[in-house]
């Protein structure tokens, strides 16, 4: 059992499905920040069996949309002076911009710098999908 102490001031990203912690670490560019960061992988969890956790000291701003797209069950906790002052669960964003490309090779978003790919969340046949605002194509993203 590895023991990692809590952080004093910062953010804890919890309930990350096991194996996705490293992906989040990369997407949030956590290897480039100056403050201490811990990535815990394969932590035992009653609800999830195993999970990953990321603790970031001295930073509170993370891209919640990006986390929600990776997995909507992820939670974040804001820690101030060793205490949890705010806990957030993810909402799948209604609109996303610039996070993934459009699946349609004929879409203008692949060809013009100003056409940053943007999508609207739509419900079709009971499930959620992202539809390109430019060409209407349904895009399956992978982050």
């Amino acid at each position, binding site marked *: 059992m590895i023991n990692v102490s809590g952080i004093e001031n910062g953010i804890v990203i919890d309930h990350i499905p096991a194996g996705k912690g490293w992906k989040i670490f990369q997407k949030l560019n956590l290897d480039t920040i100056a403050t201490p960061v811990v990535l815990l992988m394969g932590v035992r969890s009653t609800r999830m069996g195993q999970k990953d956790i990321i603790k970031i000291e001295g930073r509170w701003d993370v891209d919640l949309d990006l986390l929600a797209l990776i997995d909507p069950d992820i939670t974040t906790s804001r820690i101030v002076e060793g205490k949890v002052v705010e806990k957030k669960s993810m909402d799948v964003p209604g609109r996303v911009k610039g996070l993934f490309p459009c699946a*349609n090779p004929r879409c*203008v978003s692949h060809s*013009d710098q100003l056409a940053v790919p943007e999508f609207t969340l739509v419900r079709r046949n009971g499930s959620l999908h992202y539809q390109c605002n*430019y*060409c209407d194509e349904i895009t399956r993203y992978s982050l």
Partner: protein
Amino acid sequence: MRHLIQPEDLSNQEYMELLEATAHIQAHPDLYKERAKGKILGSLFFEPSTRTKFSFDSAMLRLGGEVIGFSDAQGTSSQKGESLADTIRIMSGFADILAIRHALEGASLLASKTSRVPIINGGDGGHQHPTQALTDLYTIYHYKKKLNGHKIALIGDLKYGRTVHSLIKTLARFDVDSFYLVSPEELSMPRHILDLMEDRYPNIKIHVLHEMEPAIRECDILYMTRIQKERFFNEADYLKLKNSYLLDEEKMELAKKDAILMHPLPRVNEIAIELDSDPRAVYFEQAAMGMYVRMALILKLLEEQDD
């Protein structure tokens, strides 16, 4: 600022007003010959076109306006690497209204984000062609005197055919009875449009078919489309599908006596030329009506801009 990028940009009331305005222009063209005097249409066709470009140009000239522009991207600054957004910024300083055709899907929406004048989508790749839908709507209204209650067959390339994408979304708003979607498996109507129909218009019946005969027998409106060579990434796929649906006199005998046969043109071989003299064939009249429709649309957008 008002643009026409996709069929949803106009309300049902606006569609009806445009149809009435078109009918008036067609009946009394002389009353309109100076209505756009002093205005300039930028006719920006990054992709080749005959009907649509000349229909727009002629519409503006018949309103007493002027036209500037190009009919393919060769020799324009976009060939030198200028972005579409920049081209539109520049051109919207020269013209009062812009009609744009582009091979990329979503190009007109992008253009509308940087334009200072109204944009009309003259076709963006295989995505949308709202002025063709408006033309088709007017043609149906002209011949059938109503829009609701019809059974409509859309036949041919339903995947890349931008005209049918715009038409099905537009007609669905006017309580039609049913759509018969006839295409090869490889060229079927995009899933997102079928899902939209199911979600938003559950009362409209959708029949997906690979054979055209049942649709010809049942429908009031037969809408043929061309298998578009330019939308295929390889020639072999095109050759396999190009003769999927050939409508000739024998097949047309199955159709109702009061059916109308439409086509957005250009035609290759999907409608036999012997059918041109069939009174139910209205595709050449349909093309001519497109000009009056565009006159009505240009006037509407210019007048709203001046208000």
